[in-house]
């Protein structure tokens, strides 16, 4: 699941899909946190998941806002065309 997220981030052109792939990676990490937590009988892992979910929610709000702002300026969300941050 994590690898699927990574590949999505690296290959897809659409910024929203890239964004969803990032969520996929986060959730993959969450899943492994929960799994290991239950496997090792340690509650700290579950605690971490809550943190990750909170941060992910905030991050997705900010990320979507950036994508909207981008679209307003460039009329595209194809990340190959968003390359103004170069020499």
């Amino acid at each position: 699941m994590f690898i699927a997220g990574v590949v999505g981030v690296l290959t897809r052109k659409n910024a929203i899909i890239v964004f969803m792939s990032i969520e996929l990676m986060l959730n993959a990490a969450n899943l492994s946190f929960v799994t290991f937590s239950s496997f090792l009988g340690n509650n700290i892992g579950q605690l971490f998941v809550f943190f990750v979910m909170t941060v992910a929610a905030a991050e997705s709000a900010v990320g979507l806002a950036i994508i909207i702002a981008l679209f307003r300026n460039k009329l595209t969300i194809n990340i190959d065309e968003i390359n103004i941050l170069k020499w």
Partner: protein
Amino acid sequence: MTQYIYLTVVLPLAGFLINGLFGSKIKNEKVIGWIGSGAIGISFLIVLSAFFQTLGLPAEERQHIVSLFNWLSVGSLQVSIAYQVDQLSLTMALIVTGVGFVIHVYSIGYMHGDKSFWRFFAYLNLFIFAMMNLILADNFVLLFLGWEGVGLCSYLLIGFWYDRKFEKSTTSDAAKKAFVVNRIGDFGFLLGMFLIFLTFNTLNFNEVFARANAMHVSTTIYSFIALFLFIGATGKSAQIPLFVWLPDAMAGPTPVSALIHAATMVTAGVYMVARCSILFASAPAIMTVVAVIGLLTALFAATIGLVQNDIKKVLAYSTVSQLGYMFLAMGVGAFSAGIFHVMTHAFFKALLFLGAGSVIHGMHDQQDIQKYGGLKKEMPTTYKTFLIAAIAISGIPPLSGFFSKDEILWRAYANAGFIYWFIGVVTALLTAFYMFRLLNLTFEGKPRYDAHHVHPHESPKLMTVPLMILAVLSIVGGFIGIPEIFAGEHGNNFHGWLEPIFANAQIRLSHFGSHTHFEEILLMAISVIGAAASIYFARHIYLKNQSIAENTSAKFKGIYRLLLNKYFVDEAYDKAVVQPIFKVSESFLWKITDVKLIDGLVNGTASVIDVVSGKVRKLQTGVAQTYAVVMMLGIVAALFWIIYSL
């Protein structure tokens, strides 16, 4: 009062700060002058009472150390601000504060009306502060502080009239010359200090000398130490080959010439050699070097003095010559005789300079003796005091110069040999001759100045009273050191007073054959008669029969020109040292090292970064996914590395 000796250092410093910081606001010359002089006067009283207190003690208890605070503490190097009160430093301190006070008072009159009156007194006080540090120091570092301090003040005061012309250049050039030449000597002194620390692991005087007395150190090391210290002394005390700065130092105001360049600072080298007598005594070869250099300097400078026409120049070469005598005394192991001469010389040479200052003052800054003449009537006090000083320096009994000079000559004969004595006597005759040439051309004969424009006048009381004080000292100063053959069973008082300081050094020196009293009296008579004869000659030539002088100089034109141009030493140094340095600086240091090497390095660094960054910036594609790929690869690589290294 011995424990309050530090006040003699603090008071001049306070005077310097008050005059230096607020002098320009005070405006009133009297106030400024008496703040400056008072600081020195009180210091003198303190030294005087400390002297009498010490005199009352038995000889073994006469050394005190007044420790103030710890200054430097680095590893095994411990340096404290501590002042050593003993026979030698007290003698020097008496000279410095006593003559210094008189000259300060004189300066109030001499500098009257100068636009930087306050600056002058601030510098003078700073000088006394540094000088007191130099002579009271109980370790080499503090001595070096004073040593550099007096050099600085000398520089400041030579260039005091920085807007005036001096000979072919300006006074600030003369000041720079003095400073640079002194630096060469200081460098030698520093090397000597390092070597002392390396050898004895301390820089405290008493410890160094105690260890030098107890430890076994090879003569080679002693020779190097003594040689380096002596190089320092040649710089400060204007000996061959570093004497060239002193004649130029006459660019400063005359009281400065009297105080710094005749009475006190230039004797610092002599003092230092006397202080380190045990180190010098352990290096016989260097002792000979000291004696020979001293002797040559004495003769060399005296011959130049014969033909100079600037009143202060004559006195300057005379100072160099007399300093040569002092080093001759040091070199033949007559340390106390050398210090004795330092003292009497301080009296009569300060008097000569102040007298010259009085003449220059009265003649509206004219310094050429060919434009003087017949000033006896207009300046009776100056004339009388000048005459006393001239007799004293010529070595006519019973004035002070006779006792000190003759003791040096006698010891040179007894300890070193006939030739030392002979050259010394020749120098003494030359000294008598040029002093009376100066005296006759200035005060006797017919006036040669333009009487319509120049109206010579006697100087104010503030200047003549110091002259009289010094004249009295020049007359009686010698009696504290009457040679043994005249003084009877008490022996030489001055010698006895200083003896404990040099006792260890005297043991190191090999003993010389005994000489009879008859020899001593004979030699003494020869030098006195010689001096009297050359005084008579000078009088004859320059008063009655001027043509002799002209004929002689015409006959020996080559020699005359050689002397007038001071053996072309300045020119030779210019060709041999100064010009090459300029050339090297310009063609190598500037055009190659600076322009090519340093600028090249700086610009090269910039252009390398420019080129590299031109390539590197292509990596910034601006496409976020490229970065993500690189980041991914990095993380994967890091993971692999962590897993494999586990």
